[in-house]
């Protein structure tokens, strides 16, 4: 390559206690190039980059910047070598304005002057095409705006090497396209960009080369132009796997849950749900798409009896009795006493779903403790169930009596989903059930949802990956700012169509706010 080498890592190893996060990893990036680092969760992508950014210090290995060997002991050292990292969890002080966050930590010779800094921020925005108000407080910002602040922050420091950790995980397709356009502009400006991701299509559309890590080990680097999706998957997972979701045609579709005009407000009086109506049918997966925080969580919680509604009704068509029950503003126990078999996999696994310090058996009992007679608990049944789940879903755990907090994210999720499915629900609601899971575990969960659908359960699936929603769901409801933006057919809808629905009326709302 004619382009000069910007960053080179040789034989990097890092361990946390007995866990090996990175083992003998190599990496090289050139100026004016976008390199993708691909790997499953826990493959050590972020750890490796954290060492380049000075957050961690490698146990072994050498790092070269522009051909010279360097020691990066702290984030400050990283700045000095013009390395800037945009973390997955934004490192911003909520209370500060964009500019205050951007200049945080800078030791300039000049006197502290917010005005001058704001002008410089404006200049950078102009150069690369960012849209942001330097005086806006972080807590008033959308996720995409926060990310913009993070990127400007490293550019303000004159970074030449930009590392982005899963930048698109929280963005809508439109925002992603905007981000990619900015990144390409930076690449053309001679900057070196490293993007950490596990989304193959992003790798293929954006990067020049791909470095693949697996379980902390360096697998190899390939040119994007000369590779295929299946080759990358194989490198990433270590074996040939077919990632297909078998979407069966819905059978015996009947209305199960009828939600009519529900509305609610939060503690501050802001509208969270605004006149939402839909029907979930048995034998069908209803997908729910939307930007995080558009009301998905509240909607599911309202159905589960955990969120108070100010208006509307939720009707449950009981397949056993043929009766129609109103679930509105009933407690979870009242709902259960009506004979409604409702299962809920909340997005906050260890907060709402499971108790971290209790073992798998105890967590099973959280759902069944009321069954027992007398004052003592019966541990045998839940124990059998726990063993059953561990076996069927291949939960990696030392045993059924291990506190769930010690399990990895994917295994925690399997325990939770397993428990909820074991109740043989007629309605199964799952919010982001694959968040933080690796490819294999994700597909296990998808298949479980499909099995439930074939059993005749009405499945409601809240997802963030539109590709998956389109592959898995029969119908997709797009929710936006607490309203329904549209319900589309999962087999015929296009991604950009959904993306547009996710953001469109939001922009309208923003315009309204602007007028106020």
């Amino acid at each position: 390559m004619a382009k000069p080498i910007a960053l080179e890592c040789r034989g990097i190893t890092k361990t946390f206690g007995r866990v090996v996060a990175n083992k003998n990893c190599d990496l090289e990036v050139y100026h004016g190039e976008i390199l993708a680092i691909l790997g499953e969760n826990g493959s050590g992508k972020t750890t490796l980059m954290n060492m380049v950014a000075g957050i961690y210090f490698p146990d072994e290995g050498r790092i070269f910047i522009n051909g010279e060997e360097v020691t990066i002991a702290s984030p400050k050292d990283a700045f000095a070598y013009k390395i800037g990292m945009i973390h997955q969890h934004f490192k911003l002080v909520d209370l500060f304005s964009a500019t205050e966050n951007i200049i945080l930590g800078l030791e300039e010779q000049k006197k502290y002057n917010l005005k001058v800094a704001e002008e410089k921020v404006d200049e950078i925005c102009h150069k690369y095409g960012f849209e942001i108000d330097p005086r806006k407080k972080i807590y008033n910002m959308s996720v995409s705006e926060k990310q913009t602040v993070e990127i400007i922050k490293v550019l303000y420091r004159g970074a030449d090497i930009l590392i982005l950790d899963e930048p698109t995980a929280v963005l809508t397709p439109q925002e992603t396209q905007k981000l990619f356009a900015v990144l390409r502009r930076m690449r053309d400006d001679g900057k070196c960009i490293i993007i950490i991701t596990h989304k193959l299509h992003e790798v293929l559309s954006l990067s020049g080369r791909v470095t693949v890590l697996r379980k902390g080990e360096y697998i190899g680097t390939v040119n994007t132009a000369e590779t295929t999706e299946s080759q990358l998957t194989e490198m990433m997972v270590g074996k040939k796997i077919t990632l297909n979701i078998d979407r069966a045609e819905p059978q015996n579709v009947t209305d199960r849950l009828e939600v009519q005009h529900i509305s609610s407000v939060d503690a501050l009086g802001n509208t969270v749900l605004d006149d939402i109506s839909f029907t979930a049918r048995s034998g069908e997966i209803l997908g729910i798409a939307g930007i995080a925080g558009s009301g998905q969580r509240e909607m599911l919680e309202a159905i589960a009896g955990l969120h108070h509604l100010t208006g509307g009704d939720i009707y449950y068509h009981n397949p056993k009795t043929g009766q129609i029950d109103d679930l509105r503003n009933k407690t979870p126990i009242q709902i259960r006493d009506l004979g409604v078999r409702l299962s809920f996999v909340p997005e906050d696994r260890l907060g709402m779903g499971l108790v971290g310090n209790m073992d798998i058996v105890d967590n099973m009992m959280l759902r069944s403790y009321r069954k027992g007679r007398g004052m003592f608990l019966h541990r045998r049944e839940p124990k059998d169930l726990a063993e059953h789940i561990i076996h069927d879903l291949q939960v990696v755990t030392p045993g059924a009596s291990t506190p769930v907090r010690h399990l990895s994210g994917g295994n925690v999720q399997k325990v939770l989903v397993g428990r909820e499915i074991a109740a043989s629900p007629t309605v199964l609601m799952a919010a982001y059930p694959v968040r933080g899971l690796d490819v294999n575990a994700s597909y296990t969960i998808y298949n479980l949802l499909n099995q439930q659908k074939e059993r005749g359960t009405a499945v409601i699936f809240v997802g963030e990956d539109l590709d998956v929603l389109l592959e898995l769901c029969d119908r997709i409801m797009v929710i936006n700012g607490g309203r329904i933006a549209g319900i589309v057919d999962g087999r015929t809808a296009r991604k950009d169509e959904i993306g547009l629905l996710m953001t469109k009326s939001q922009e309208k709302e923003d315009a309204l706010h602007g007028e106020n």
Partner: protein
Amino acid sequence: MVAFLVSAIRLGMSLLLGSTGETITEKVGHLNLGIPGIMCVGAACGCYAEYLYFKAVGVAVVPILAIIIPLIAALIGGALMGLLFSFLTITLRANQNMTGLAITTLGIGLSEYIINEATTIFTKGSKYFTAPLIPFTDRLGVFGDLVLEYGVFVYLALAIAIVTTYVLNKTRVGLHLRAVGENPATADAAGINVSKYRYVATCIGCAIAGLGGLAFIMDYLKGNWEYCVDTIGWLAIALVIFTVWNPTIAIFGSVAFGALYVASSYIPGVSFAGKALFKMLPYVVTLLVLIITSMRKKREHQPPQSLGLSYFREER
């Protein structure tokens, strides 16, 4: 009436010093419940230094030294307690609440020991502190009495409060300091030395609080030691919340607290038990402020986000 206000202001200034010190430590994320003990130690160190100085020089007292020596002693006493608190919570990562309460108990005991080594009467030294700093104020009538006729502590407290507000809000150091208290991981990633900021700010804050203890004895009590300096410390902590972490608002807040606290002595016919109820008022007001600010949910009026939390970089 004038006497009441003057008394309120003079009590208020020791509160102001205490709360300014606590605000600085809270702004870097240290919930320091050791302030009452630290104010005790500051007061005791200052008084003991004064006692030693008078013993050494006999009658040849230099007024400026009679002020500066106790001041420095109080600052050092407070700072050392702050250093102990920082070492326990930053380096050893002990729980801040527990450490703070232990420091309070320790400080009260330590101050009693120091005072019992010396004497409980410092009226002679107190004269230098209460002497009006600005000359001829007695000829200016009520205005002079109320606004100008104060000793060194009142002006010192005001200056410290205003400088602290300025530094916190208008300088780079202040920006970094607030970032450490709001979100230490972010500050760390931005290249700010979190431990250093926490150590330095806590020691400075505690030194200022120590000064507040000395002000209470020398200025408000006119040199008569009483074993109740810690009461002022608790009031100072309440004042931090009352003034939503802003030392400039604390200037007025401290006078209001001082007024509520001394009011019972100036209202005729309040029984001894009734006085205790009056002294409770500042805390009641603080509770009200807490309720109001949490109801209004204005982000600027909330405590620093990582208040009370230790920070360890490689925690996963």
